């Protein structure tokens, strides 16, 4: 990375509060061009909130966010970003075909009241092909399986030819076979030189692609580094906490406390 090539994501001392309650605190995160970063952590650790903060869906209560070197408030080149939300948004009250949903991802590069150009159509076709849904392109999204709907959302983000991808739990609720299909699509992104920030509960087949793991705990970054140093060899991909931790403050009877403090002496 040279000085003329600012990092795609740069967050300094970021904090997010939801309803007055702090959810993220003291987050420093810089993602460099071409990096594949996995945000890991337990439920409620703030990993999804961090992605939502990075995309502007959750306002920062503190800190400074820059995307491609531009302060977020002045950021307008949205076509450089591809966002893949959790799968819930794929179906709506009116039928929509796979192609139509993917086409909406091209809006970042289209002007108002202009029809699709040849380049737009090509990008949409390529995006559908990359996720392997060419034969389902005219089918209604709601008739697809969960894993296929997830691939539609990835294709939608792809259609705008972005440089930076944010994916919120793309593998949640997807069986191992389809996780592998998703991983292949992500590998193709990585091979193109895209920067990827991905939230995951379990990595599964994505693991070999990950350059860097950021483990969240209690709204802070607990670990930031290579995956191999962090994940234990049993292949258990949950954030491996060495000590037992819960979000509920530990409540114990006074006698119990007395007992446990005496135990070492016994």
């Amino acid at each position, binding site marked *: 990375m040279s000085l003329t090539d600012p990092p795609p994501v740069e967050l300094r001392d970021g904090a997010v509060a939801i309803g007055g309650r702090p959810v993220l605190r003291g987050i420093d995160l810089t993602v460099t061009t071409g990096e594949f970063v996995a945000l890991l952590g337990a439920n409620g650790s703030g990993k999804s909130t961090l992605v939502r903060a990075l995309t502007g869906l959750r306002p920062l209560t503190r800190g400074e966010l820059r995307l491609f070197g531009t302060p977020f408030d002045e950021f307008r080149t949205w076509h450089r970003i591809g966002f893949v*939300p959790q799968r819930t948004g794929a179906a709506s009250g*009116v039928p929509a075909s796979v*192609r*139509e949903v993917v086409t909406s991802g091209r809006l*970042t590069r289209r002007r108002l009241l202009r029809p699709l150009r040849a380049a737009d159509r090509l990008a949409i076709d390529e995006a559908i092909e990359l996720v392997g849904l060419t034969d389902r392109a005219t089918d209604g999204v709601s008739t697809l399986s969960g894993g296929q709907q997830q691939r539609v959302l990835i294709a939608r983000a792809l259609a705008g030819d972005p440089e930076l991808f944010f994916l919120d739990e793309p593998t949640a609720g997807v069986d191992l076979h389809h996780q592998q299909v998703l991983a292949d699509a992500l590998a193709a992104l990585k091979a193109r030189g895209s920067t990827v920030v991905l939230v995951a509960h379990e990595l599964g087949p994505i693991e070999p692609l990950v350059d860097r793991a950021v483990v969240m705990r209690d709204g802070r970054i607990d670990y930031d580094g290579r995956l191999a140093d962090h994940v234990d060899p049993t292949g258990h991909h949950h954030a491996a906490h060495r000590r037992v931790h819960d979000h509920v403050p530990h409540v114990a009877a006074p006698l119990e406390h007395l007992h446990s403090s005496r135990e070492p002496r016994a």
Partner: protein
Amino acid sequence: MSPAELFSLPFMQRALLAALFTGLAAPAVGTYLVQRRLALMGDGIGHVAVTGVAIGLLTGWSPTWTAVLVAVVGAIAIELIRERGHTNGDVALALLFYGGLAGGVLVTGIGGQSAARLQQYLFGSITTISSGDVVVTMVLAALVIGVCVGLAPQLFAVAQDPEFARVAGLRVRFYNLLVAVLAAVSVTVAMRTVGLLLVSALMVVPVATSQQLARSFRTTLGAAMVLGAVASVGGLVIAAFASYEVNAAPGPTIVLLALAMFAVTWPIGVWLRRRSRLQAPFDDDPPGHDEADHDHGPHTHDHGPACGHPAVQHDDHVDYVHDGHRHAPHGSHYDEH
């Protein structure tokens, strides 16, 4: 009076024009409302618009314009309440609905107007429409159709997935308010045709009908507009001919015709969905034993030593190489090995 004479009457021509434009515009907005699961929003705006009509009757201004104004304000209020209120948004909407209806009836009474005057707006009176009103209806309807079709990519994206739309740089709140304003305008446009209390039917029923058969958004939108136009023009004509025998009001006839169209397409939609479910391939067979369901047409012959496909010994049986994969005869079909 013969049918030709009936259609040559100026009031009938005005009514047909108003019905055509209303029938095209109302389902166009309705599609976006249904997509956002706000099918009853048109109904709510209609209730609020009753107050607008009453204010027009009280002050002597044109009830059409006061209705447009109050309906737009009400629609924006509904949208903002919906956006802010997460859990009890529908309760807040209900408050606005009934406030609008009660306010309208009360103001009409204060103004000394009879209930019959208000009823024209509640249940429609398309045959009494003036030529000035026809022009206003056509202009407003054309505006609604133009925006709904012209900005379809943006409106579709925002309604489909607001969060994605925001990260794509679209001004989600602006588009949401735009749909609310368009809904308010088409409610007041349809007010003269089917009436404020039935307006939501013209916005929602054609959409419900067209989505029985459509697989894409574009088809749903186009078909809903065609069905809406057919229902409102057809309903008006039926009511006109029926009026030789009985006192048939056009508004309810239009709505009932739209519902009849839904009743006809619904079983077809059920059958189509059932068929597509039955045709969906199963891919959960055990590995190494997939029943042949891939797409290379039906077998025109039985695989055998003389069929021309290369034979491969596979454990205790023979597979035949077929289009790059191996078929093993198994009863009436072939397994993939």
